[in-house]
């Protein structure tokens, strides 16, 4: 013991708690719950067209949310997610037509196969750094498209329709089928959003947010960035393949060009996410609403519509990179879903420890 004794410093050790919810997110969750009840009852109040449009809407929200997880949170900017939409669609058609699997069982199997395929694919394209990763994902999607057009049992390049026997196995009447597919689309969307929500609330979510904000800092704090990214890539492939399978179960026909369409499954999805707000769970939802509103008014303009959408996305990226939702968050501090982590100090407690401030 040294002769000079230092008085232990008394210091305030606040008891803190990490909070997720804010007043606006409580309102958001309550609203989402009420909305879900209304949407689940849509077959009671909506016509055929409404159900069809809503199911398509759910599909885009799900795809955009998955792409947002991949690009906005994990920094894996893929322009080749149509690979998994198409893979899911083709697995559904192959399992039901060639192996006699029930379509409803084929949906989750499409996800599993999508995830299984994603592992070796990631092994290859994760070798490409940054920007080149994006084009690598596109090559993979092209390879899938070209391979699918070689499967003569599934109609080769011109595609195939789902045989009537399989269609009736989903539901005996057309109305029963449409209701079931509608509810499936809603259920899959809720499952996708729920899974992303839970993933972001877990320690993976914390790691992802850290990687998104500064990958180098995250790595130096012990985050295994490559592993986290691999997990996100495979999970996204799983979800995207299921959504793809459902979209084509609704369409009842698949072909290489529609299943692996870069415009339908990647360009639209990217524009939706960028316009709505990338890196925010609420972004894809807002973006899809804007996308459908624009489409309903401009759809017959065809290529001009895509051109305008591209221009809007570029303008948003340059002038408001966080999108529409990011603008509201910055302006009003809103959040619909309790995802943020806020440190709140509950009560200051005086302590006499000071062990780490003790003998200098």
């Amino acid at each position, binding site marked *: 013991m040294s002769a000079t004794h230092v008085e232990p410093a008394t210091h305030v050790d606040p008891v803190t708690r990490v909070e997720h919810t804010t007043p606006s997110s409580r309102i958001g969750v309550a609203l989402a719950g009420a909305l879900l009840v209304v949407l689940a009852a849509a077959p009671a109040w909506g016509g055929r067209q409404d159900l069809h449009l809503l199911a398509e809407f759910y599909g885009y929200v799900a795809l955009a949310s998955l792409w947002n997880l991949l690009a906005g949170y994990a920094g894996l900017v893929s322009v080749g997610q149509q690979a998994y939409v198409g893979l899911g669609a083709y697995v559904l058609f192959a399992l039901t037509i060639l192996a006699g699997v029930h379509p409803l069982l084929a949906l989750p199997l499409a996800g599993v196969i999508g995830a299984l395929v994603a592992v070796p694919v990631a092994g290859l394209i994760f070798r490409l750094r*940054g920007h080149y990763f994006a084009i690598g994902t596109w090559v993979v999607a092209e*390879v899938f498209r070209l391979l699918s*057009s*070689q499967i003569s049992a599934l109609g080769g390049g011109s595609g195939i329709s789902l045989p009537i026997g399989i269609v009736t196995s989903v539901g005996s009447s057309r109305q029963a089928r449409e209701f079931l597919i509608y509810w499936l689309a809603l259920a899959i969307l809720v499952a996708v959003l729920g899974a992303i929500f839970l993933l972001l609330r877990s320690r993976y979510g914390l790691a992802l947010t850290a990687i998104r904000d500064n990958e180098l800092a995250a790595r130096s704090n012990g985050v295994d960035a490559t592993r986290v990214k691999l997990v996100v890539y495979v999970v996204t492939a799983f979800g995207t393949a299921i959504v793809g399978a459902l979209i084509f179960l609704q369409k009842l026909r698949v072909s290489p060009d529609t299943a692996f369409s870069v415009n339908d499954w990647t360009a639209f999805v990217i524009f939706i996410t960028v316009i709505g707000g990338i890196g925010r769970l609420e972004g894809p939802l807002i973006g899809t609403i804007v996308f459908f509103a624009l489409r309903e008014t401009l759809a017959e303009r065809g290529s001009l519509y895509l*051109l305008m959408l591209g221009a809007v996305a*570029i303008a948003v*990226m340059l002038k408001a*990179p966080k999108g529409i939702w990011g603008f509201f968050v910055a302006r009003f501090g809103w959040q619909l879903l309790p995802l943020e982590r806020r440190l709140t100090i509950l009560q200051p407690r005086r302590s006499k420890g000071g062990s780490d401030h003790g003998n200098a």
Partner: protein
Amino acid sequence: MMEWLNIIIQGVLVGGLYAMFAAGLSLIFGVMRLVNIAHGDLIVLAAYLAVVVTEGLGINPLLSLVIVVPLMALIGYALQRGILNQTLGPDLLPPLLVTFGLSVIIQNGLLELFTADSRRLQAGPIEVASIHLGGGLAVGTLPLIQFAVAIAVIVALQFMFYRTALGRAFRATSDDQAVAQLVGLDNRHVFALAMAVSLAVVAIAGVFLAVRANFDPAIGPARLIFGFEAVIMGGLGSMWGTLVGGIILGVAQAIGAQIDPGWQLLAGHVAFLLVLAVRPQGLFPKVQG
């Protein structure tokens, strides 16, 4: 045997075109770490410009290079100064998404202006002329010219990069942007010049594409992918590497097409994925991407 030799020669010659797709891509990645997703669509844009110039002035398509090349260089400079410079920074997302948006805009703009019908430029008797090498081997004069131009482009880029003041500026900003600015380089200007050079090469590639094959507004992304595969197979940052990458791709596609027409593109992608699996840094890597 002779048949296969012929196929490989055709593949090599097409590889020259792919090397031109790749050289522009490689150049801007080297200077500013930008991957231009609209690269393929800009090639198609150049092809359509060549159509407009050729038909408007009634000149030989190869002569249209005199107008299309400076025009594309100008577009490149304006594009970089006006839009792309704003996207550069530590975040990878903005340049990717903005060039992806540009790609969609160019594609659909061309579709509005020129419809989806496929086009082709007629270059006159030179199209069918060929040189006989004896023993049943023959090479088309036009593919040979195109290959020679590809080599000339790569030699010129190499010379510019290592022997001129402009190349010194490119290399300086590539090595360290901050220091380059400290010694008096205006990065915005240097980047815009790099994009101008890149699109000048794109213009040459576009004109040859228009003469060699049918094209329509939708074929851009595939050209981007060919160029990209040539860059990665050749090794990042190496101009001669892009030529080797382009030739591997061209030969793989030619062999694939010979086995089954449906396998042409697939064989090229498979060759790329094999190189990526076995030698991810490419055959002649120069910079670590």
